[in-house]
């Protein structure tokens, strides 16, 4: 579930989330717990929908590292959202092989259907979309993915995109 937070709102991780963090940390040698940073940020984003500064500060505290070490990582990797997104973020591959089989018309169609520009959120908070670089599914393009599970949709057509958006709306309203 998406909980849009104000960036000043403090964050408290649930015991379940903390136990997932601890499980990740156990994969690395002692003293190398910083290796858990990327997986933990994915867990945070799956829980809150994005990685806010207070959440990143808490992660730093958990891993006994400096907050800047978390910020620099979250801002380097494209998967971490530094501002709130729609509940469903449609990420369409826009690179070469998908482009030559019609990624641009798919993105134009999504923009028109949702009525928001790339990176913006629909007024109901349900959808955002953006073009992303190669998703390694070049034989099945155009493709898009939706986090936090990163479900994959291949061989897109404008009809299949309409159906997908309709299904997601139905799912959100139930």
């Amino acid at each position, binding site marked *: 579930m998406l909980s849009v937070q104000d960036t000043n709102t403090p964050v408290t991780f649930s015991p379940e989330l903390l136990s997932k963090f601890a499980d990740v940390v156990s*994969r690395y*040698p002692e003293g190398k717990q*910083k290796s858990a940073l*990327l997986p933990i940020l994915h867990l945070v984003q799956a829980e809150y929908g994005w990685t806010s500064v207070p959440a990143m500060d808490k992660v730093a505290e958990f891993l006994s590292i400096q907050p800047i070490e978390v910020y620099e990582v979250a801002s*380097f990797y*494209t998967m971490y959202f530094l501002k709130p997104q729609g509940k469903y973020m449609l990420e369409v591959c826009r690179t070469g092989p998908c*482009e030559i089989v019609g990624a641009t018309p798919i993105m134009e169609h999504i923009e028109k259907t949702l009525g928001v520009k790339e990176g913006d959120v629909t007024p109901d908070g349900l959808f955002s979309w953006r073009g992303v670089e*190669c998703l390694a599914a*070049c034989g099945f393009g155009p493709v898009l993915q939706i986090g936090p599970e990163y479900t994959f949709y291949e061989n897109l057509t404008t009809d299949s995109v309409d159906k997908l958006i309709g299904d997601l709306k139905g799912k959100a309203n139930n």
Partner: protein
Amino acid sequence: MARKLLLEHINVPGINTFDVYRSKGGYAAVEKALKTLTPDEVVEEVKKSGLRGRGGAGFPTGMKWSFLAKPEGVARYLVCNADESEPGTFKDRYLMTYLPHLLIEGMIVASFALGAKTSYIYVRGEMMPQIRILEKAIAEAKAKGFLGKNILGTGYDLELYVQPGGGAYICGEETALLESLEGKRGNPRIKPPFPAIAGLYGCPTVVNNVESIAAVVPIINEGGDEYAKLGIGRSTGTKLISAGGNLRKPGVYEIDLGLPVEEFLYSDEYCGGIANGKRLKAVVAGGSSVPILPANLFLKTINNEPRLMSYESLADGGFVSGTMMGSGGFIAYDEDQCIVRNTWNFARFYHHESCGQCSPCREGTGWMEKVLHRLEYGHGKMSDMDLLVDVSKKIEGNTICPLGDAAAWPVASAIRHFRDEFEWHVTNPSAAVSGNFGIAHYADPLPKLEEAAS
């Protein structure tokens, strides 16, 4: 039909589960290696096989393994590079989705050979479904005694973990991958020291591509000499090719190296020709970073010999008239595709993915993207082509990691082979925005399908 070593059982229902995989002879390589061979003997088999790294560089895997430093009392690591992000390449996703146990089996054998007690599979973050598949398969293998303490009673211990990335192409470069696995930004390290001496946590480390690790399984089962009998010359064995673009049958194909490109492209066993009965204009043979070739040069070398799908034949002619095997990301362009637009698209990709450490790459990729954008949108100048070549030459070889080269080559090769199409964009700006230069003289020398039939 050629024998499949990796994808033989891909269509068996339930092959992603331990029991079905095992019933098809799975994990025999683990039993053979751990019970009958020494680690050095496993390395020797891989050396004999002639297996070359399947991630793109083509460096002999067995030799890479033999470089691993083995100081007393220091941990050694095997890290599998599953950060597949090279545009055109999707074989590793396919392999992990349908044959997760093949990768795990290869990881166990390779870890044993290298003396690693903890190994990681670094999977790009977007592949969360594949991460879930691998984690389930690892749990199954562990429950059956193929991972964990005292594997099969041999006294060998191994823990295997899956590590997600965060969405950065650069992390496919092995030292950037190690930085990322340590929880840092994916900035490539200056080499030397190489990972074989100081890799993960400063310890000796081997980083191998998914397909290279998977290929270790048939090599151990059948012996390195048998594996080396497949293929041609120094291109031994089989290779997964990710075929995409304007093809009638895109997908992942396992080929014997040395297959003629014409057969790969046009036979129904493989790509089945160009989609919608169109003609072939150009091919990127090994992922977006290798030089693009016009159809005529791709099908036949400059000496008019048929080109083969092998490391040597694809590179025949150097960068003047050849290309590279790369990671096997095969992209076919039909007559309706615009080379300028495609080159701009790739330049944008490399600009987006540059880590920003080295100024030639950080600034140069952005510059090339801007110039290509103005050419594509009808604001180009005749001097732009020389400018692009100049910028690409100043990136190439002047960066810490090969991303700079990877960004420079597609631009330089597009201008080398398709200069008249670039010039046409300058002289016909409005036509270039609305239309397409077409196939011109690049066309493949083969007749159209309907002509061939009559």
